[in-house]
């Protein structure tokens, strides 16, 4: 009886923090995506976390711009945001298994798929996952793969997604070619 209790206690001691860590770890590992860099025509890599994020939050909060204030409210609990976008010159120029490996990470416990779109037009695959710790959103992952491009977004911490969608494209930042081309490639709705 005493041994059983000891084993049970030990199991709980090991499993509980492990599960907690797994549940809370919304960070995806993008190391394998480095293989796409050599083949991509355009690469966008943005990592904002830690002190950089704190600094940016302070600046955003101080800004008098109305959109910036909305952003400041939306990202108040944000802990990190990681973006990878790869644009290729030709179709199917990248190894699809690399992107599938990222999707495999999202099948781990804690992640819930909220959107799954497959379209043969442009070979588009869209996946959106969220992770919740209790009632609080702890992560968001967006994986969009098309014939000529791959885009991954990993957000750690709560964020107002609706606000992001509203402000998408409105922020006063330098335009990047990759965004214009993707907009041109998306066919209009019939």
């Amino acid at each position, binding site marked *: 009886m005493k041994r059983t209790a000891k084993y049970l206690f030990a199991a709980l001691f090991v499993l509980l923090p492990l599960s907690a860590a797994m549940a809370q770890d919304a960070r995806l590992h993008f190391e394998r995506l480095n293989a796409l860099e050599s083949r991509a025509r355009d690469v*966008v890599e943005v990592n904002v976390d830690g002190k950089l994020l704190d600094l940016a939050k302070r600046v955003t909060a101080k800004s*008098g711009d109305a959109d910036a204030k909305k952003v400041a409210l939306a990202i108040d609990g944000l802990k990190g945001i990681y*973006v990878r976008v790869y644009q290729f010159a030709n179709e199917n120029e990248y190894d699809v298994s690399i992107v599938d490996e990222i999707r495999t990470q999202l099948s781990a416990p804690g992640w819930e798929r909220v959107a799954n*779109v497959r379209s043969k037009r442009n070979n588009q695959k869209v996946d959106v996952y969220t992770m919740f710790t209790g009632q609080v959103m702890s992560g968001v992952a967006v994986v969009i793969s098309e014939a000529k491009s791959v885009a991954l977004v990993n957000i750690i911490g709560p964020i107002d997604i609706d606000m992001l969608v509203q402000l*998408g494209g409105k922020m006063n930042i330098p335009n990047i070619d990759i965004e214009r081309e993707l907009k041109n490639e998306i066919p209009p709705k019939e």
Partner: protein
Amino acid sequence: MKEDYLWDKTGEDAEIERLENVLSVFRHQGSEAPMPSVAPLPEPKRGWFFPLRFAFAAGFAAVLVTLAAFLIMPNRNAVPVASVEPSGMAEPPVAGQFTNEAPITRTDVPDNSAVAVQRPEAARSVRAEKIVARNESIKAVRRTAKRHPSPALTAEEKHAYQQLMLALSITGSKLKIVKDAVNGTDAASEDLKKSIR
């Protein structure tokens, strides 16, 4: 004259004796001289009237100085005596652009203005009010500038802000793609359902 009599009254000296007899009236009797009666000095009056008089004089002097300043200052700045009604054409002062020579309430006054030229005292008070209003507006602008300063960002802050905005913009556009894709799928499935019916 024998000097001994004068020295220690030894001997005889008729002339000295005669003088002594004549002046004996004034001889010291041996008692202290009576103190003369001295009238006590009157205590200074500490009534309320004296400080009031002084305060009144000081206040009157201050008023004179102020009026003199008002008389002098407008002459230097060449502000017209006639009062001017502000119109919507006047631009509010902007921090950093305000100069002491531009009263904020001054606007274009037509030549045939029906505004009467006021008496000097009233004009001075109007000018004083304008100066006070101008100073208050300067203070308000400075307070506003302090509260909402245009942020002087360091290179590090700029970089952080730009990186964050870039990340959020890309995220927003990708989420919009997702939204469009989902809406497109929903629309396609609705069309399919309608066609089956």
